[in-house]
């Protein structure tokens, strides 16, 4: 009996191994002329080689481990009917397809490619255009989303979807994708251990990258430019943010990076350039802000209360209208060894550290926080005068909020 079991097992393994190499060609003039037909004919671990051409299909359900390989970027046109590819099996690879015209719905989130409860999937070299949702990962684990190009035509938030969305996912790599003009470039909700690297997310209607209730994730070397509001990281723990560029998120309600209820994160070596607000911080604790560059922002840092135990070290603050804005008199955050372009102190002992502490909160930014309407006095002579007098003898701004060792030269 045991022997028979083994025999069956060996046959099974052999069978799957043999079938692994099978390739089914799909082309408009082949016997198999549609992707759907190809999927239904294929046995597990087959490869569907989709040749160049246009396939008007939607609701393609991949329910066995397959490789969908496009040759010369075949077009799959959903004709705005609904979802295009739905993956419900483990070990599926989608490679080299051009998917357009995903249906828009106000009751269902149609996606170009949706992965449901699968493992070990790989979505790469895919181009998506005219989409609602792009790549939607739902309770999926251990997958890779690599080198895809997602170009939407979103104008408003309510009738557009996200480029890459992760919902209850774990251990996913999102790398080298280019996402433009969708609602949120990349959106994570309840997703842990996700690595987001080398992506470019620009011109999106809402956020370039958006975290919600996601822990232990990291994003590195991404570029976020000209998005409706930049990057939002909310209600998450242990997020690592390194070497990213946040640029030109400019507008009345824009920011480079929004932190809301974030604990124990690292923000290291990022560049914040020409944003209305570089980082807007709310209720975030024990965060390390090290070696970041803040240049030409309206506000470099806008701290909005309930932020404790943060450390700001070795950052460059250059030519921002306001370096730091703070709305409480209590300060439990540490500023140390930063470079401030508006520092006017001296360094007599020539050790590279200024001898007088620098106070980054101007009186004007304190007043604006209290009464936002006073911002209309921006750049008036009166404000410069009272800022100067506050600098000489601080009365209103928290007196322990200062950089006691400001650098004389920019951190390289």
């Amino acid at each position, binding site marked *: 009996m045991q022997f028979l079991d083994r025999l069956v097992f060996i046959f099974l393994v052999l069978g799957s191994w043999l079938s692994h190499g099978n390739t089914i060609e799909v082309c408009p003039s082949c016997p198999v002329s549609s992707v759907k037909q190809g999927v239904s004919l294929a046995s597990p671990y087959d490869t569907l080689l989709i040749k160049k051409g246009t396939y008007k299909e939607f609701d393609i359900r991949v329910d066995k481990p397959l490789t969908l390989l496009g040759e010369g970027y075949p077009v799959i046109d959903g004709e705005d009917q609904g979802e295009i590819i739905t993956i419900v099996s483990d070990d599926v690879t989608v490679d080299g397809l051009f998917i357009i015209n995903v249906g828009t719905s106000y009751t269902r989130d149609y996606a170009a490619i949706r992965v449901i409860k699968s493992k070990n999937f790989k979505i790469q070299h895919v181009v998506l255009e005219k989409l609602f949702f792009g790549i939607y990962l739902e309770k999926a684990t251990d997958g890779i989303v690599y080198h895809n190009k997602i170009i939407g035509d979103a104008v408003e938030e309510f009738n557009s979807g996200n480029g890459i969305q992760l919902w209850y996912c774990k251990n996913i790599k999102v790398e080298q994708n280019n996402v433009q003009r969708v609602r949120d470039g990349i959106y994570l909700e309840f997703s842990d251990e996700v690595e987001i690297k080398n992506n470019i997310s620009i011109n999106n209607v809402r956020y370039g990258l958006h975290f919600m209730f996601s822990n232990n994730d990291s994003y590195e070397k991404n570029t976020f430019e000209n998005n409706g509001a930049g990057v939002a990281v909310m209600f998450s723990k242990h997020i690592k943010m390194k070497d990213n560029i946040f640029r030109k998120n400019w507008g009345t309600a824009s920011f480079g990076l929004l932190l809301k209820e974030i604990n124990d994160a690292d923000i290291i070596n990022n560049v914040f350039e020409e944003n209305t607000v570089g980082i807007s911080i709310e209720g975030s604790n024990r965060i390390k802000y090290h070696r970041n560059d803040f240049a030409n922002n309206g506000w470099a840092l806008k701290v909005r209360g309930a932020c404790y135990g943060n450390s700001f070290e070795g950052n460059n603050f250059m030519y921002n209208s306001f370096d730091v804005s703070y709305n409480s008199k209590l300060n439990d955050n540490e500023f140390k060894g930063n470079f401030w372009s508006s520092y006017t102190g001296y360094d007599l002992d020539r050790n590279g550290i200024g001898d007088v502490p620098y106070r980054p909160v101007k009186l004007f930014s304190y007043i604006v926080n209290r*009464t936002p*309407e006073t*911002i*209309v006095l921006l*750049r008036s002579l*009166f404000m410069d005068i009272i800022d100067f007098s506050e600098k000489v003898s601080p009365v209103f701004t928290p007196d322990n909020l200062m950089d006691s060792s400001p650098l004389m030269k920019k951190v390289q």
Partner: protein
Amino acid sequence: MIKILKYSFYDLMRSRWSYVYFIFYLLLGFVLLFLNNDVSKAVITLMNVIIVLVPLIGTIFGVMYYYNSREFTELLLAQPIKRSSIFLGQYLGVAFSLTLSLVLGLGIPFVLYGLFGSNVIWDFSLLLVTGAFLTLIFTALAFNIAISNENKIKGFGYAVLLWLFLAVIYDGLFLMSLIILEDYPLDTFSLVASMLNPIDLSRTLILLKLDISALLGYTGAVFKKFFGTDFGLFVSIAILLLWTILPIFRLAYKANRKDF
């Protein structure tokens, strides 16, 4: 009047101070552009200079010119010339020469650095227009002060006080009232308050045209909605004109009744 205007104008054109003023702006323009090499950024810095310095120079120069040319004025008064044309001629001579120094002094460097090729040409023209208006307004106010005060020291004192009030103290009062009334909706109030003072009005007009207006947030949006429309621009130009015309009328009125 045209003759006196011409005379005052040429007199000032030949005087050292116009050149100093002209060369100051010329240098300022070149230095700014040399350091920045970015026409749009230079416009922002220039705005700070214009809204502070132009009124100050207009005020001081106006008062100084009036007191200095007093003997010549008395000589003219003995001639059969209408009084209002004597004073208006002098006023316009001063105001035009100052405006010319400003426009040429700033215009030349910016044109040389490729203003026409850049997209800030409208912002820059707005800057020059408001600068010109500020010159006209503050010179007129200065003439008013000078004609009402025989005492030179008093006249200078009032002139500087006037500048101080409009450039600094007004904003202080504005700020205080905003803070005191912070429980009330303040958008209309701040809109009106910033329109009443020519310096604030110029600042707001220019700021809203620049990128930096995004910093103004919600209040800025309200402002933009008003100033961004043709109606808003029309109203602000009208207010600047009013600020120019009213002091001129008072000048003419005072000149006719003054006992020399």
